[in-house]
């Protein structure tokens, strides 16, 4: 069976899942099966088929599982959003259309050879950094500069910037990886990169630090810097470089912790979320993370079922805030249980596996590094938000890719997917 036929068949379970999910929400809500659930399923199937056709025409050899896996997450997110608020689900569906347009545009623009990106690496890097600086023009949300208001739409530039930075790093490291390894010196038992080439690396570290101080959000900085370290490691195969980088990042984070009260309170809330003082603090307390954990505790093994999680009572302030964005994972655990939550994690893991497989199949260094970097930032983003929601690490607000509500997140992650598929198409064609 050809790759695209396999993809087509793999889309069937995603569509069935969506139809079944909507049906379940309808039954919960009205005790009757509305044919609207079938309509939603049909629209989603049509969207998937359209994207599938684009892939069939432009990237016939690309990985057949990546798109269906993303479709599963997207439909899962739609059902959850529909259960939270019909209006949100409708808007999210529109964002999927916009995301698919960007997806198609990216593929069409780069289908001849995605390596043209290398030529514009400095432009892309500069663009990425400018994007990240944009929110400084506005007001911080929860102490962090992550979003920028463009008219009615709140835009989160970090989502797009992560792609730009990965493209730049992949290209830069392709050039310098050899000299970084050859010129390395051992000192005090640790292998240091050559001083001459340490400069650009320090520049990247400096940028990450700058970002940390500019956007003042540990989570997204960790995501950028983690992606950078993953690329340095894969490019040089030197674990010591990663350790040095981590040490430097920790130093910067410690500095920020010392000067920024928001970070400090986040860490306090993480360490002791059930302290009544922190719990009842109006701003910057532990209310959110404590509610997230209480919500998960309601889920148990099998969950309470769609529509059963306690999120809001009437017009009172939400019991579980930001249920549609940051805390959607807590709602999933509440309503679908440990089983549902682990299933979602498994889907992400399968996407990561396909991403790294693509990187391993790719023949040129840039493509390898690009696929690795994109996959790594995606995995890190999931780790940062799920880790925050489950109290594994201090909470910072990033979206759960393809599931959380949010236009910038959807659009950026579809572009990320398009790039992975572009790398995959070339790699698999050359391998065949």
């Amino acid at each position: 069976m050809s790759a695209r036929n396999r993809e087509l068949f793999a889309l069937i379970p995603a569509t069935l899942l969506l139809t079944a999910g909507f049906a379940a929400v309808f039954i919960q809500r009205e005790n009757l099966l509305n044919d609207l659930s079938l309509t939603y399923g049909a629209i989603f199937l049509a969207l998937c088929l359209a994207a599938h056709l684009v892939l069939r025409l432009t990237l016939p050899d690309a990985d057949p599982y990546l798109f269906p896996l993303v479709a599963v997450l997207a439909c899962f997110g739609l059902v959850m959003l529909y259960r939270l608020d019909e209006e949100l689900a409708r808007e999210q569906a529109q964002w999927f259309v916009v995301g698919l347009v960007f997806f198609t545009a990216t593929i069409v623009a780069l289908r001849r050879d995605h390596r043209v990106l290398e030529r514009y690496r400095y432009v892309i890097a500069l663009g990425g950094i400018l994007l990240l600086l944009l929110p400084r023009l506005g007001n911080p949300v929860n102490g962090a500069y992550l979003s920028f208001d463009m008219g009615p739409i709140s835009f989160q530039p970090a989502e797009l910037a992560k792609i730009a930075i990965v493209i730049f790093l992949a290209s830069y490291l392709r050039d310098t990886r050899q000299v970084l390894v050859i010129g390395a010196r051992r000192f005090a038992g640790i292998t240091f990169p050559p001083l001459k080439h340490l400069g650009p690396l320090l520049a990247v570290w400096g940028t990450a630090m700058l970002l940390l101080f500019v956007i003042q959000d540990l989570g997204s900085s960790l995501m950028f810097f983690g992606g950078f370290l993953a690329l340095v490691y894969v490019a040089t195969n030197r674990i010591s470089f990663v350790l040095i980088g981590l040490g430097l990042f920790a130093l910067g984070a410690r500095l920020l912790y010392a000067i920024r009260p928001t970070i400090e309170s986040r860490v306090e809330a993480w360490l002791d979320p059930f302290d009544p003082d922190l719990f009842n603090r109006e701003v910057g307390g532990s209310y959110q993370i404590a509610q997230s954990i209480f919500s998960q505790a309601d889920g148990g093994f099998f969950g309470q079922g769609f529509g059963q999680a306690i999120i809001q009572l009437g017009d009172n302030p939400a019991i579980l805030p930001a249920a549609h964005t940051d805390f959607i994972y807590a709602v999933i655990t509440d309503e679908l249980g440990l089983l549902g939550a682990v299933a979602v994690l498994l889907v992400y893991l399968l996407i990561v596996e396909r991403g790294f497989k693509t990187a391993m199949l790719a023949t040129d260094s840039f493509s390898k590094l690009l696929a690795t970097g994109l996959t790594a930032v995606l995995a890190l983003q999931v780790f940062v938000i799920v880790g925050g929601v489950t109290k594994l690490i201090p909470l910072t607000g990033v979206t759960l890719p393809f599931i959380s509500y949010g236009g910038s997140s959807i659009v950026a992650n579809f572009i990320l997917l398009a790039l992975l598929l572009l790398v995959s198409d070339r790699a698999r064609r050359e391998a065949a």
Partner: protein
Amino acid sequence: MNAPILKLFGLVLVLFAALAGMTSYNSVINAEEYRDNALNKRPQIEQAQIKRGVIRARDGSLLARSVKDEDGLYERRYSDRARRFSHVLGYDYALGIGRAGLERERNDALVGEENEVTSIVDDLRGERRVGDNVVTNLDPRAQQVALNALAGRRGSVVAIEPATGKVRVMASTPGYDPNALRRPANYSRLSRAPNSPLFNRATQAGYAPGSTMKVVTAAAALDSGKFTPQSTVSGRSPIIVSGVPLKNFSDRQFGAIPLTTALTNSVNTVWAQVAERLGRDRIAEYMERFGFGTDPPMDYPDQQMFASGVYDLKRNKLIPANSRQVDIGRVAIGQERLRVTPLQMAMVAATVANGGVRMAPHITSRIVDIDGRVVERIEPDDSERVMSAESAGQLTQMMSDVVREGTGTAAALEGIEVAGKTGTAELNIARRINQPWFIGFAPRSSPKVAIAVTLENVIGGQGGVVAAPIAKQVMQELLR
């Protein structure tokens, strides 16, 4: 470069395993603890989504029901009739101030707490969970009689059916409107109010029992075999008890009189001597048998019950009645640091009435599901023999004399023989502040009701004058 990519994937696997581990910890492994966390209001919200069962009085009249509010949650509403029972009924405002009283004690039944299997089956059948209804033994008319008789004074009346332990009346004044507690501000206002209206005096107040305690002493004496109602003891006054002179009421002098006469006239010096001859251990044992020293075995929250007994008043701690620091002679006549609840004294009267067998008092009669099927019937249980039937019979005769010709004549009913004992604890002799008491039961031959009545801080009030008439009215209503 493929080797480091594989290792990187390994790292991602480890990170995701940590995520799955943390999710398991939150949702399954430690979930129970999180659900019990005091900051977590979710279990209460869940229960507020269930239509809570109603609570009814013995005659079927509605006391508490649930209505849906604008947020889709059920909220408690109490009927006008429920105002009579504010303390015993308690309240359920779990999302606000919490739960108390019977509402708290019977919460599981009222929210239809069932085993896991039935709830899953109900879920699959699409049935909404509803709570079971609670039917009480409480008698609204007798309760109203008690409240009218207390007439706004601080006090309490408890009436129990001796053979079964059914609580028919449990009044505590002043009371409050339970509906007002929906607003937490009202709760904090009431909890600071000078007359402590939220306090259930029937179960929570520790009062000096005065001479009603002599019933316990008499039970110990008769049951010991060392005394009969005809045994004579000198009633001169004063005598030295534990190194301190003890006087009779009004310093009245008696010669060598039988115990019957000593109870009829409530002669302090006789009963103090009886207790000293019986010894501290025997008095302590009979107190324990009557239920002193522990919370009464009633279907009511432990937090709202007070264990009667001898107290270290500074540290507010029970001390054993047979301890060397206790003046047992004075404990036997209801003095010393003895503190008792009206409920405990009603249990003493009920035990004598029931031929010496103590029944566990219970407010709930039965739990009934929404279709009217009885889920649970609260049967008389926890019966314990306190004294022999013979001793109980002798004591009944002695207590009948109290009402016929002694201090308790004001409790006498027309055509029905009443047994009882009065008490007047002198709290402040100089200012004549007393705690008047009456405990008793009727009819004498086959008792249907046992009762305890007391009032706080009555100037110059004596049990036979102030408390006995209240007992009379309530017993009359219950025996109608």
